[in-house]
């Protein structure tokens, strides 16, 4: 690895109103180096990369690529200087082929077809050189997420980028696809290219990067070679304090609280139909549902929330078959529901903290009488929950819209857990949350299980599932695998099942 800097950021400062999103950030990237950029939400990672790529103009500071200054505010100049960005959300046209997508925006539209043979040759040599294979004539809409990401990377390489920036590249990938991605990135780096990847997954940083830079509140708080640090040190630097990790103390499971007996369901726009689902959760137990997003988890969550009724099979809650699935019926039956879409589904964003804490209980005796709300009871309950669940906001009358994601999730947990549910459905409960809030959510779920609730935890994050679950089932194409004990299951095997290989449906054999 050579030590010639290909990219140098000096004293980058950017203010949004009174907030310093970037405060005097300097960093260098060497040729043939893989740099991880870490930080909590709002630490300034995305702002910094947007400045580098010319989407924002910095208030102060300069960017140098290969020793020459990059004019600010021009994505075109950044591209010309060899800086390429792979966004978290892909920017591909599904109804075009891989080759067309790569030519689009690079080659002039004039003579698009005529140039395609040359483009194909160039693409072929790139694929050969970096061992990144995709069928150039395949339609993008038929590709897997991992393949689409490869197309995005090829698109950047096609434009002769020497510096690749990847924003949360593994957020949508299976473990195998992630491994494949990092192998590709290694290959790029070994041929002299340089890579910056933005992430908050510490495991990836430790496994893949050469060096890491941690941002907090817009400042560089730690810059170190990966060999010289540990995941604990990085976590501490990101948060500013050490976060107590939620730990699981196994508890003998109690009675069955939920049994899905061959449940089928379908709903438009919610992924594949649920096909003969069979799962069982007992008191004190956390059952993890693993899977790549879009494999039916949303529909399973809707089903357990009472939004979607099954078209076949039985939903059995504590021995009772549920005949009419509605949200109100599920709440009455003691199901606590934590949806993945906090602002849209879980909360009424324009109403207050107190009102949102009340949406599931206001009709109960004690909180309303003869159609009149009992504000005194609702307010004292809200004050108590805000205290116990550490919901930080301007007050019970603050609109929920102004809360941070972590405080929104704590609000939902407060609403759900205060009702003493027998079963908890948690769908992506820590998605988009920072480390501190994630630890709090984990602790609440573990505490609820210890008190005797059964938990169905749907997550795309295998680390989270391994940390919390007693057993794990994999969801693939609307089907569920046999449950595996977390203590004995092999991570790689789960990964293969998530990608549909070696997937055996429960009860299918």
């Amino acid at each position, binding site marked *: 690895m050579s030590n010639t800097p290909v990219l140098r950021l000096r004293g980058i400062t950017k203010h949004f109103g009174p907030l310093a999103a970037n405060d005097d950030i300097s960093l260098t990237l060497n040729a043939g180096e893989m740099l991880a950029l870490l930080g909590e939400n709002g630490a300034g990672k995305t702002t910094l990369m947007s400045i580098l790529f010319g989407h924002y103009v910095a208030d102060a500071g300069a960017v140098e690529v290969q020793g020459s200054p990059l004019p600010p505010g021009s994505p075109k100049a950044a591209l010309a200087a060899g800086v390429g960005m792979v966004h978290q959300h892909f920017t591909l046209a599904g109804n075009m082929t891989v080759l067309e997508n790569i030519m689009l925006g690079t080659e002039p539209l004039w003579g698009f077809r005529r140039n395609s043979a040359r483009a194909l040759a160039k693409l072929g040599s790139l694929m050969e050189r970096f061992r990144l294979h995709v069928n150039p004539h395949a339609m993008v809409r038929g590709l897997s997420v991992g393949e689409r990401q490869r197309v995005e990377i090829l698109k950047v390489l096609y434009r002769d980028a020497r510096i690749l920036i990847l924003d949360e590249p593994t957020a949508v990938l299976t473990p195998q696809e992630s491994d494949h991605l990092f192998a590709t990135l290694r290959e790029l780096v070994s041929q002299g290219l340089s890579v910056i990847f933005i992430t908050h997954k510490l495991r990836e940083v430790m496994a893949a990067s050469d060096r890491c830079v941690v941002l907090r509140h817009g400042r560089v708080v730690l810059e170190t070679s990966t060999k010289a640090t540990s995941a604990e040190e990085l976590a501490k630097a990101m948060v500013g304090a050490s976060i107590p990790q939620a730990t699981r103390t196994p508890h003998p499971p109690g009675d069955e609280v939920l049994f899905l007996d061959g449940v089928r369901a379908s709903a438009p726009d919610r992924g594949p139909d649920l096909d003969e689902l069979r799962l069982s959760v007992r008191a004190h137990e956390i059952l993890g549902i693993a899977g790549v997003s879009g494999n039916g988890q949303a529909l399973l969550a809707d089903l357990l929330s009472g939004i979607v009724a099954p078209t076949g099979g039985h939903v059995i809650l504590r021995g009772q078959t549920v005949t009419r699935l509605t949200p*109100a*019926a599920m709440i009455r039956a003691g199901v606590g529901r934590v949806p993945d879409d906090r602002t*849209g589904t879980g909360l*009424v964003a324009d109403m207050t903290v107190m009102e949102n804490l009340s*949406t599931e209980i206001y*009709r109960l005796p004690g909180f309303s009488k003869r*159609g*009149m*709300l009992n504000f005194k009871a609702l307010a004292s309950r809200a004050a108590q929950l805000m205290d116990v669940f550490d919901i930080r906001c301007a007050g019970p009358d603050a609109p929920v819209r102004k809360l941070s994601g972590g405080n929104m999730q704590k609000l939902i947990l407060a609403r759900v857990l205060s009702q003493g549910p027998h079963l908890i459905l948690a769908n992506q409960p820590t998605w988009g949350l920072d480390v501190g809030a994630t630890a709090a959510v984990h602790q609440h779920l573990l505490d609820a299980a210890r008190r005797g609730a059964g938990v169905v935890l749907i997550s795309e994050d295998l680390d989270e599932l391994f940390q919390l679950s007693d057993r794990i089932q994999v969801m693939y194409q609307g089907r569920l695998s046999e449950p595996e004990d977390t203590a004995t299951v092999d991570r790689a095997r789960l990964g293969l099942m998530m990608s549909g290989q070696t997937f055996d449906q429960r009860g299918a054999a």
Partner: protein
Amino acid sequence: MRLEPRESVAFGWQVGAPLLAVVAAMAICSGLILWAGASPLAAWGLLLKGALGSTFALTETLTRATPLIFTGLAAAVAFRAKLWNIGGEGQFYVGACMATWLGTGMIDLPAWLMIPFLFLTGALAGGLFLLIPTWLKTRLKADEVVTTLLLNFVVLLVVNWLVFGPWKDPMAMGWPQAAPVVDSAMLPVLVPKSSLHLGFVLALACAGLVWWMMRFTVWGFEIRAVGASLKASTFAGMPVGATIVRTALLSGGLAAMAGVSELCGVKGYLTLDLSPGFGYSGIVVAMLAALHPLGVVLSAVFIAIIYIGADSMSRAIAISNYIADVTTAVSLLTVLLAMFLTRYRIRWK
């Protein structure tokens, strides 16, 4: 140019901004008055004097405000639940028709019973009438903006047929109008020798009741929650369907009460020009009030001042009373803009 939500807005601004906006609207319209060759100060002075300058003027203004309070409340309640009821005009006439049907001789009760009876039956008819498009919306996803708006014309054509046909009053010397309501159905006058009638008090009471309901009751909470997020209130297990039906009954009922009030308080008999668009103006009233039930009273009085005052002003200095329409329209724009700016701040790059 970017928009940023403001962190917090002082209460003073929330009230002050719409008032400033109205002043701004009057300043803009002053240009038109100048163009028409009159002094804006004199014109506005005459307008205010014509609307508020004497007991008679004041009672005229409040009489005009009465149906606007009812239809404004109707729109405010429905819009709060995101039920876009543009059919206030039709529901107004449904209420008036009901009162004509029952009140022109079919039933005669002492006034203290007759008046509540006509208001309640009228409100029920208007509420049930709005259930038709509401049902089409919830069952067939038919856009209620379209269906409620078009039903206005259906109702007007039916009224047209009624006053030219079966309900035509033989004593009206050929005019297309229905028979007058019985004496016990007429609303008592509040101020002697004026047209201000009991309907105004009823309208104020309705505004207070609606405010109380929205603020303190389970139903009000549900209406606000369903309006703020249908998805989240469904998820929370709220009775969404029942809430929408309740909202429709209330909204249609309030608009119909405007019809009963005009029929039994002002005119006494049903004609095709009983409403000069009160149903539509109610939407403007509600928007000016930011859908607040008590604000509806203020904005209804404001619009009544503009219209009554403009008539008087145009008689005095010969400026077309269309200035009233222009002023209301410009006020609506400036007030909406002001309310937007109290929520967001504009940043120029």
